[in-house]
């Protein structure tokens, strides 16, 4: 499996890009002497004009490069944690629905369908607006709008796995139903969940940046979406203020999508061959 992943050029490009973003996020305070909130130069300093400020300054004279580095922290953190929370909601719900069937399945799927019908970005806006924008409320709102596909996927996987022979064997061996679900069935559904999770982190990063673009970011955290939102009105005079954060988002999301596709090809070689035939 790892061999297949390693020979996938796109996936390796994704890994390299993502590692670079992670390193920048971790070592931001060491690389940049300035905090992202500190005024260091005159406002609207163009990029490449000063060696110490390679990407120029923003409307308040703050270091754009430092802001980008600190923004990576928020994006990665919110992306990762909200995906984990979404998995915590979606996996148990989907597993129970798929394993027990009947009324449990019916109820769980109606609930999931309801959340899939609601326009998810609009719901995220409403949640964050009502519960005040903080990193916690943003993360939770993104998790609440992103779990339905997980529940559906896990349900479908569990339904197909539970019909397999080793599950019958476990039943004959006298294992209890919950034990079979957790120990025998769920471990066999892990690979599609991993693929979906890596793509979900990418979507969550896009969602977080969209929320902070609309002014619904945590006021105490510098984020890429906030930078673009703040620079929106000065796009005519200072294009770089919106340009660089956007590139940062594209690179990070692209890296995660490439990794997700690489994982998909590596974990489900059967499917990928069909796709490329």
């Amino acid at each position, binding site marked *: 499996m790892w061999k297949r992943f390693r020979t996938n050029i796109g996936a390796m490009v994704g890994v390299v890009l993502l590692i670079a973003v992670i390193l920048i996020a971790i070592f931001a305070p060491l690389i940049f002497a300035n905090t992202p909130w500190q005024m260091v130069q005159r406002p609207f300093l163009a990029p490449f004009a000063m060696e110490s400020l390679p990407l120029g300054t923003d409307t308040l004279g703050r270091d754009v490069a430092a802001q980008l580095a600190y923004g990576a922290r928020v994006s990665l953190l919110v992306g990762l944690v909200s995906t984990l929370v979404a998995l915590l909601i979606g996996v148990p719900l989907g597993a129970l629905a798929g394993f027990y069937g009947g009324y449990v399945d019916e109820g769980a799927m109606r609930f999931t369908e309801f959340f899939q019908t609601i326009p998810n970005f609009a719901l995220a806006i409403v949640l964050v607006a009502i519960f005040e924008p903080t990193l916690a409320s943003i993360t939770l709102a993104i998790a609440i709008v992103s779990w339905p596909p997980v529940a559906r996927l896990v349900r479908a996987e569990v339904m197909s796995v539970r019909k397999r022979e080793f599950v019958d064997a476990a039943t004959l061996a006298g294992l209890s139903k919950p034990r079979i679900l957790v120990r025998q069935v769920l471990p066999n559904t892990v690979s599609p969940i991993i693929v979906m999770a890596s793509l979900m982190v990418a979507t969550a990063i896009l969602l977080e940046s969209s929320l902070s673009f609309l002014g619904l970011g945590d006021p105490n955290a510098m984020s890429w979406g906030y930078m673009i939102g703040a620079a929106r009105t000065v796009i005519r005079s200072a294009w770089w203020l919106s340009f660089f954060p956007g590139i940062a988002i594209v690179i990070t*999301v692209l890296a995660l999508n490439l990794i997700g596709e690489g994982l998909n090809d590596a974990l489900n070689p059967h499917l990928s061959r069909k796709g490329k035939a």
Partner: protein
Amino acid sequence: MTILIAILSRLAKAALTLLAIAVLNFCLLHAAPGDPAVVLAGEAGAADEQMIAQLRERFGLDQPLYVQLGKYIAGIVQLDLGYSFRQSAPVIDLIAERLPATLLLTLTAFVISLTCGIALGVAAAARVGKVSDSLLTTLALLFYATPLYWLALMAVLVFSVWLGWLPGFGYETVGSDFSGLARALDILKHLILPALTLGLFFMAVYMRMTRASMLEVSTADFVKTAKAKGLSGPVIRRRHILRNAILPVVTLAGLQAGQLVGGAVLTETVFAWPGIGRLMFESLAARDYNTILGVFLVSAAMVILFNIVTDIVYRIVDPRIGARA
């Protein structure tokens, strides 16, 4: 006949969903930190003491929660979405005034993304493995990773600010007294950039889906039969592969409708497009919760409408569904 029954059951389900969203809205209003009356009035001193007392009485905020819920739902059934103290107008009027602009934008973006996405997907699948296929796939991957609002801003920068080809702001030229065809053309010019940027992301999604689906169907036995009959490549692609490959794309398009409507908030914000998305954005800064929740409810209704339409399209494209039901 079966289609009629299907539509009726869909409508009943839609009504139930909207009711559930109304209950959710009610819960959110009460979960918001602070006094619900103040929350309803909008914060930052928009309401004085007297107004808040009136609100308390009108919504019966001193009564038990279930009575309040009943009043709230009864109001919504009568299309009363509350009053926006910020804009001094009933929320439903604000939304009704702006809904046509949003419908025009989302429908245009939907049609553009679906037709171009399917066409490009078919083209890429036909040239699988060649340079043009890799180019299209890479471009789709790139658009897939691009934030909608950023793409919109960059489009304004390039096509409006630098090149000056298209207006990057508003719905029509301010202060012009165009009428009839001239006005339609003016609106069309303003529509191009917002609709294209909103549609590009979804075009990428549909293109990837169409390509994968075309490739999957092309290995089916009936395609081999068609080849053995001596049919030409384009005929097989159009008549045999595409007709089957298009089904999952239509399903996906229905599921994506919610994203499209949500994306309109971002596009309208960037282009100052006077739709309900822009209304939501303006209400965010003013903490005008009545308007925010009203727009939320109406956008959910729009998504349900999109879903019903794709459902009908699906039944037309695939008659087997109707027969089974």
